[in-house]
């Protein structure tokens, strides 16, 4: 008689950890916006946004190197996320139905920086010799390979914003955010030359707010409010980033306050569009055609599926 009564209790005890895990996974009432990096000026407009005004309770989730925001949106572990346009096309071609809503950066801030002392004149020159550190899985890297070939340059993994190797070796060039690492390198006393990847005609929308098709269909009003809040946030940040920079610096003190000010200023030319965040079908089509040619996606995707204009 003891056995049947004991059994369920033991089973229950064994299941407890699993139950705890489930509880931890339970949905928070907040709307989550997953960032793909730590708080920094690239996200200024999101930190400046007054979500409450639009009836939203938004939690910004800082990320790190390789935070899979596009998968998080698709899997529902964040309602909104920051992605790059090419990531979205890749995700869509693999069946992850994610939709772009607002493109903060109209021009892609990805670039390659090299020591100015090498007197290089174009991105092609960077590939003539020395070492280039970059994420070779990214489409722009393969576009570079296709255009110039990697026969004379050694390609190594990107150190993710770390400058140690760059400062140590004059013939070392690396992938960068044109608004961030070059400023840091100059502060360390090294003069650099920066080549944006848009020079070779690769210019995906960057720092794009995206959501899942499911959420867009279920709650279009909330998505609309989100876009409105973000648009106002960016307008406010462009006008005066001081208070927001202080707020972000408190959250991410690893970067000094003057750097926030400097980067906020440097990124301004990359942002402008009217209205802020606007995207066009032509640019989505162009990017899809580029990715198809590179073999990243099996067939081009209609722009109308990729973004909505709210």
């Amino acid at each position, binding site marked *: 008689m003891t056995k049947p009564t004991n059994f369920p209790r033991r089973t229950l005890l064994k299941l407890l950890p699993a139950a705890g895990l489930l509880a931890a996974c339970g949905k928070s009432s907040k709307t989550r916006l997953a960032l793909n990096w730590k708080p920094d000026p690239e996200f200024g407009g999101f930190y400046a946004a007054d979500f409450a005004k639009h009836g939203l309770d938004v939690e910004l989730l800082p990320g790190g190197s390789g935070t899979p925001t596009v*998968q998080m949106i*698709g*899997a529902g572990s964040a309602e909104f996320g920051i992605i790059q346009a090419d990531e979205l096309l890749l995700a869509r071609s*693999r*069946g*992850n139905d994610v939709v772009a809503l607002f493109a903060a950066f109209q021009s892609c801030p990805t670039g390659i920086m090299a020591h100015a002392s090498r007197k290089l004149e174009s991105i092609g020159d960077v590939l003539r010799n020395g070492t280039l550190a970059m*994420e070779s*899985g990214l489409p722009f890297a393969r576009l570079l390979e296709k255009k110039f070939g990697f026969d004379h340059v050694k390609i190594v*993994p990107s150190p993710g914003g770390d400058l*140690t190797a760059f400062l140590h070796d004059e013939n070392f060039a690396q992938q960068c955010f044109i608004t961030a690492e070059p400023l840091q390198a100059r502060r360390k006393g090294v003069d650099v030359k920066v080549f944006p990847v848009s020079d070779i005609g690769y210019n995906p929308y960057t720092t794009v707010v995206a959501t899942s098709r499911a959420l867009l269909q279920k709650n279009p009003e909330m998505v609309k409010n989100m876009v409105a809040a973000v648009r106002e946030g960016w307008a406010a940040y462009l006008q005066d980033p001081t208070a927001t920079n202080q707020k972000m610096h408190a959250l991410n003190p690893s970067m000094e306050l003057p750097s926030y000010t400097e980067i906020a200023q440097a990124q301004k030319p990359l942002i402008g569009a009217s209205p802020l965040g606007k995207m066009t079908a032509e640019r989505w089509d162009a990017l899809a055609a580029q990715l198809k040619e590179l073999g990243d996606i099996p067939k081009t995707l209609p722009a109308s599926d990729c973004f909505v204009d709210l």
Partner: protein
Amino acid sequence: MRTALRKAVPAAIPFLAITIAIESLVRAGWVKAWLVPPPSAIFQTIVRDAPELFRALAMTSFGALTGFALSAAFGIAIAVYLSSSRAIQQAFYPYAIFFQTVPIIAIAPLLVIWFGYGLRTVVASAFIVSIFPVIANTLSGILSTDRALRDLFSLYGASRSATLWKLSFPAALPQILTGLRIAGGLAVIGAIVGEFIGGQGLGAVVDVARTQQRTDKVFAAVLLASFLGLALFGLINLLSRVVLQRWHASEQN
């Protein structure tokens, strides 16, 4: 051979069960294929990208094995040295613990500058990550020699080195081998992390596949890495059998 096969059967059952479960969950649409690729897609990727994947596996194997061999040699030597006196132990053991805690990613830029991109960084990373369990287990094994036997040795006037090589070290072998088993798995992880920064082998494959959202390829590489870990584990078990079979209970049935 027959016994090896018979041993493999119980282990194959959960593998098959999990494989079938994931496959059906994905096919039924419960789990998204872009999040968890179905095993069939992973196997297809392994077949289609075989030349690339197996070349990468060979590089990772070489890096991991070299790092592991260095860990085994230096780890045992360091532990023997540490066991020689209490003062030496107190002076240096804390620094051995350093190896266990060092976050490889944090010192990655230094590794690259010291060892350059490529194999040497990979070996260094595998070595750093895997040496500590060898030191800790060897040392603990040597220090827990049976006191009665130790007394017997000193009663017969055995020298220090005779006591070490004829008593303490052989008695520590089971623990040393346990240390090596742990180190084997860690060396594989260390090698792959080293490849993230050093840029070759399975680590580089995972890195590139991840940016391209090719989860099938990521999993294919992970699967190959775990086979490498298993192979290394098997190798150490074989060694353990050879060394301990004659006298230690753990290998006698």
